């Protein structure tokens, strides 16, 4: 598999015949490289998505924070009334109630209009205090990174999800083959050497991988599980022939009530507040997640109130089903079959929504090491090959391609993601299609970083883009102070922790990017030492041979 420009440091073992570790090493290198850039973007946007609710709050600064969680029963009733007035003909609506992490309710409804070309659903954020649509800037908020993480953008959702699935599958193979390659992986972990160029990239890559290995494996596999019905529909297709049969499966996966036949008899929805009150008694005051209604306003209406995510590591559906017209409790669903529960646990492990603040930060940090694992792996591909280039001044096309794509997909992504947040603060709120403009800005800046990486010498491009990200991140709290009513000093006094932490995170990440920029720049300045490193190469090759 290592035809041509294979992994040159393993020349000896190649001569001695290709063992399993050698073929696994090649598999690891190529499987990871091929989709590495996509994986890096998935890892980084996925990592920040652990704080997507907080990010959404930051991106809607007009919406004041909730000093305490409002009574979910009251809020549910308020929004149900509002929906009865504003979308009376809907066949289905769903409210995600505000909780400790969300200061607004998210509502989704089917539109009655069946005209082709018209959207079949509407969505919006609602103010828990008034029950009305929030008057804040139009933005997708943290939801953008979350959706990009598994379906990308500018392409049909299904294509994006298949691409994400392919990337995840390559990742799974890369992890397994990576472990087989590094037989002495745990020894490697304790022999970390800083500042030895290629060797230290390899060590960093190994350390990041080993440190988070169980997590990386879990997160990759459970990522596939979240969309498994799309990727592996064959068993389902064989087992269930009719839509009615298929509902047996749907009931195991979500709190989905099939939309029955409308009777045409208008009966207003019974008290939603009472329904949520019963759910609160069962699961706790702040532990109701959603209220879903089908055929509201009809005699055949049904309402499901679902359990919150706190207190259990599973996303399997738990809900109470009510008759909409009378408010009578029809059923309590609190368990699913063993395979469905297993899937629910895997799903929950991936999303981490059950987490308290400490667990959430751990999720964030370990995911971050996963991002760094992919990033160091990508960089290593070029570092390994640079010293073996036949013409160091004019590298072959493939090398240059990987080198430039690395810059734009690693340093460039930091710039683009920060630009997205700048756009959120700078684009004027009344602008038409503002939410889309923020997203277009993100991709526009990302494309610019690629252009920049293509025209500048590689090392300069790295340094300049890392500094760019650092400066943008560093100034973001300043921009926030200038453009909103919630500057750092204010948030500190008010105990507005999301805004405080966001500002501090920006500075931490600015520092990280500055350190990376300075390290990269120093490597260039120390060009003579590169020749020295080359002379030492046989020794490092020998040691890497031993360590595998």
């Amino acid at each position, binding site marked *: 598999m290592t035809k041509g420009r294979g992994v040159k440091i393993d020349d000896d073992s190649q001569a001695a015949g290709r063992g*399993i570790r050698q073929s696994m090493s090649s*598999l690891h290198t190529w499987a990871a490289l091929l989709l590495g850039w996509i994986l890096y973007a998935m890892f980084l946007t996925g990592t920040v998505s652990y704080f997507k609710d907080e990010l959404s709050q930051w991106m809607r600064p007009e919406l004041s924070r909730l000093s305490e969680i409002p009574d979910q029963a009251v809020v549910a009733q308020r929004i149900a009334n509002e929906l009865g007035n504003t979308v009376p003909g809907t066949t289905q609506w769903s409210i995600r109630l505000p909780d400790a992490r969300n200061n607004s309710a998210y509502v989704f409804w089917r539109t009655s209009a069946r005209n082709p070309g018209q959207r079949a659903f509407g969505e919006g954020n609602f103010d828990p205090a008034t029950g009305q649509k929030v008057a804040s800037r139009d933005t997708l908020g943290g939801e953008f990174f979350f959706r990009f993480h598994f379906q990308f953008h500018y392409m049909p959702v299904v294509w994006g999800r298949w691409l994400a699935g392919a990337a995840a599958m390559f990742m799974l*193979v890369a992890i397994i083959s990576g472990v087989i390659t590094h037989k002495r992986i745990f020894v490697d972990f304790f022999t970390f050497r800083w500042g030895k160029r290629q060797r230290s990239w390899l060590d960093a890559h190994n350390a990041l991988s080993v440190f988070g290995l169980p997590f990386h494996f879990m997160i990759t596999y459970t990522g596939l599980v979240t969309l498994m019905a799309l990727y592996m529909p064959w068993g389902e297709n064989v*087992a269930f022939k009719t839509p009615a049969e298929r509902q047996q499966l749907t009931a195991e996966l979500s709190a989905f009530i099939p939309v029955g036949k409308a009777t045409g008899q208008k009966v207003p929805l019974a008290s939603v507040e009472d329904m949520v009150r019963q759910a609160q008694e069962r699961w706790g005051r702040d532990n109701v997640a959603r209220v879903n209604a089908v055929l509201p306003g009809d005699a055949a209406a049904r309402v499901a109130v679902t359990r919150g995510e706190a207190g259990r590591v599973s996303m399997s559906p738990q809900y109470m089903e009510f008759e909409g017209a009378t408010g009578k409790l029809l059923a309590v669903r609190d368990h699913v079959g063993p395979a469905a529960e297993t899937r629910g646990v895997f799903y929950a492990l991936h999303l981490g929504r059950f987490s308290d603040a400490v667990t959430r930060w751990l999720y964030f940090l370990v995911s971050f090491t996963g991002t760094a694992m992919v990033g160091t792996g990508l960089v290593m591909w070029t570092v390994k090959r640079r010293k073996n280039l036949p013409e160091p001044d004019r590298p072959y096309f493939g090398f240059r391609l990987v080198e430039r794509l690395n810059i734009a997909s690693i340093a460039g992504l930091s710039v683009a993601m920060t630009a997205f947040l700048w756009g959120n603060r700078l684009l004027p709120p009344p602008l038409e299609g503002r939410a889309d403009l923020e997203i277009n800005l993100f991709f526009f800046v990302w494309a610019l970083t690629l252009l920049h990486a293509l025209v500048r010498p590689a090392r300069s491009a790295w340094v300049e883009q890392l500094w760019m990200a650092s400066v943008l991140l560093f100034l973001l709290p300043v921009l926030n102070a200038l453009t909103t009513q919630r500057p750092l000093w204010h948030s500190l006094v008010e105990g507005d922790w999301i805004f405080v932490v966001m500002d501090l995170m920006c500075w931490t990440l600015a520092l990280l990017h500055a350190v990376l920029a300075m390290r990269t720049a120093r490597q260039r300045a120390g060009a003579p030492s590169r020749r020295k490193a080359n002379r030492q190469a046989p020794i490092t090759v020998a040691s890497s041979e031993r360590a595998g």
Partner: protein
Amino acid sequence: MNAVLHRVRSTGPLISRIIAALFGGYALAALSSVAVLALPLSKPQAVLTGMLASFLIYAGAVIWVFAVRSALKAWAGLIIVAVALLPLAWSVS
């Protein structure tokens, strides 16, 4: 002509393995996710078990394909497992 032949001979097995890994591996995973329906489980549980296991089977198949000594052996392994699973998948469809 000889050069082309040489090219095919040197890259053929690799391409064969890549196809075996990408498509053979997926086919095997899909087949196993159907064969699981033959287990004495309720239908929804069996379907979900098949889906959950399929990605590990896919990954295992890819590792197998690149771990063995020859492309021929890689294909042979996939086919032997597929032949074993076929009657099970057949019985439920």
